């Protein structure tokens, strides 16, 4: 009896691990708040970027705050390849990066090692 329970539990755990790590997960995209013709958004940096996808409105000057809550080296830098931005996030708690919103499109960003990814969609 106990064997069956243990066996069942093991199978359940393994399925959960497979589902959790290898499954296809979609994350809710974040939005910005617009104030005085300027939009602001915050991305929390902790074991990744949340939200990792951020939607900005076209034509409104945007400031994106990266809130650093991770103290390991992995996420120390954020790199916007297209914009030529490479910022060290560990110098201050919140790092503000201005994002040009004059054109529609996607701007990808990543950590310094290109392991963690996120994107900003302008529409």
């Amino acid at each position, binding site marked *: 009896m106990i*064997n069956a329970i*243990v*066996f069942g539990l*093991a199978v359940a*755990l*393994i399925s959960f*691990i*497979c589902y*959790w*790590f*290898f*499954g296809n*997960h979609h*994350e809710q995209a974040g939005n910005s708040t617009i104030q005085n013709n300027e939009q602001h958004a915050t991305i929390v940096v*902790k*074991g*990744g970027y*949340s939200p*990792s996808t951020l939607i900005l409105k076209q034509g409104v000057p945007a400031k994106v705050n990266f809130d650093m*809550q*991770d*103290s*390991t*080296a*992995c*996420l*120390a*830098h954020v*790199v*916007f*390849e297209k*914009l*030529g*931005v*490479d910022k*060290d996030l560990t110098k201050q708690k919140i790092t503000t990066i201005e994002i040009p919103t004059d054109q529609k499109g996607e701007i990808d960003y990543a950590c*310094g*090692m*290109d*392991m*963690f990814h996120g994107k900003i969609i302008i529409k």
Partner: protein
Amino acid sequence: MKLSNLQRFWISFILAVPMLIQMLAMPFHWQMPGYRWIAFGTTTIIMLIAAIPYWKSAWAAFKHHNSNMNTLVAVGTTVAYFYSIFALFTGRDVYFESAAYVTIFVLLGDAMEERMHNNASNALGKLLELQVKKAEVLKDGKYVDVPLDQVKVGDTIRVRPGQKIAVDGVITKGSTTVDESMITGESMPVEKTVGDPVVGSTINNNGSILFKATKVGKDTMLSQIVEMVKKAQTSHAPIQNLTDKIAGIFVPAVLIIAIITFTVWFVFFHATAVQAMLFAVSVVVIACPCALGLATPTALMVGTARAAKMGILIKNGEALEEANGLQTIVFDKTGTITNGKPIVTDLIGDPQQVLPIAGSLEENSEHPLAHAIMTKVKESQIKFPSAQNFKDLRGKGVQALVNGQPAFIGNAKLVTDCQLSAELQKQMIALQDEAKTVVLVGIADLVIGLIAIQDTPKPTSAEAIAKLKARGLKTVMLTGDNRNVAQAIADQVGIDQVIAEVLPGEKAEQIKKIQQSTSGKVAFIGDGVNDAPALSTADIGIAMGSGTDIAIESGEIVLVQNDLREVVCALDISRKTFNRIKLNLFWALIYNVIGIPIAAGMFAHLGLELSPELAGLAMAFSSVTVVGSSLLLNKAKIEDDPQLRKE
């Protein structure tokens, strides 16, 4: 108080010393008195200051359905630590050292990376400081000083001799020579007259000019270069960290194996719950990425330190990998292949007659050609009289009275004004064919001698290029200089291909073209401001130590001694180090591949089980293997090691 990774590393390292002693003493069956409690105390502190950040980051990554190196570290350390506490109170063997050492080694890797980032300087900012603060702009018929940011396109700007040109523009009045070396790396001043373009931040030498601003602010050549370097630096796709890639699959896999181990032992072999758990815990502990974490940083540390001793600074690990697939190596000409300073190469005519006159006429000149001639005169220890009544021959040369006789020195344009024997004429053409600048020296109306001047290759350049070619690399020269001069230098040093007359802003573009035309990696070696975008664009940028700050920042490898033979060493050491990293990772992985099944008890029926002592010893052994393998890099044979070179 926030501790840096390096501080956390040292505190943890000192705390872990007793465990290290115990681990080394294990084979001699010596047990430190009260070891279990000492280990418990020190490991608890290490966990608190060093491991918790990894646990937090791993948990946050877990919530994002991610697993990485941190997850592996977190799972390994938590299991080892909390199981050991359980074992401590139930009288079983403890694994505190596993938890402590995994944390310390991973921390070492992080600390090294932190240090590399902190070393990045701010040469880009310095580059913009080359700009002048204000310009003399024509306003209502008067020239007034205007701050640089208020200069507009279309403004007429006056530049006096010796002043810096403020922005990009076109000359509208006057003629002069301009020192553009800070932008082009070209040491010879360029002659400019009405209609010629001028570049901001270059230095106006001898004439007073007026020019119309055509580009200001962000559009100037200098600002464009800064912008290009910034973009090129961030778009340099960093290699994905191999260990992180493995960790993405490894962590879930290890967890699954651990669960299967427990189930199989408990359900099918009817082991007790504690026994089954021991096997499962062993699996996770043995999978701890101790050696895996050490593999890269130790090899990097030894490899870069050895390179530094040879005068080669390797700024990041990526350069090492790129060096492996290198197929093409592109050189800047001036200052890289050549010395960057023109010198006298040939003297036609009687030196006793020619040099005193040349010395008299060029003594007070600021022209770099004059500088080369004066160096030659001083070397020959020839005395010369001083000249009177100097007269500028407008773009041709100078004339003056030497010992009461009219004497002159100047370029080939003088030929129409004076007599040149057929013999000298022939020699002049021969020298010009070798892309040398020829200066005529004469008395009265007769040319009595020729002085040929050239920016010659460094004595070691040809040897270095031959060695690179022997390695199967294609060599290319990329220069803004004219085709004849470039080809002449290329022939002297044995370069395969010449790309000449490249505009300062186009070098990066050319590198991209080369990258597209070849499947292999492309390296670029340069020293000037205009080389910076190309250095960042190339797969490996190698900067000369004598180069501009911006070039040194843009390059991944810096050659301190400005000797191209160091490129050969740099490539050798890069390849050796990268191969060592791969070997280390292989050992570390093999260790896991063999260790996990043993830990899971697969060979228990053969009596092969991983007892706690063995687990500890095996872990220490794998780490020692990796560290030892890295240290062997110090002994690896590097061809052309300057320390072994006999000069």
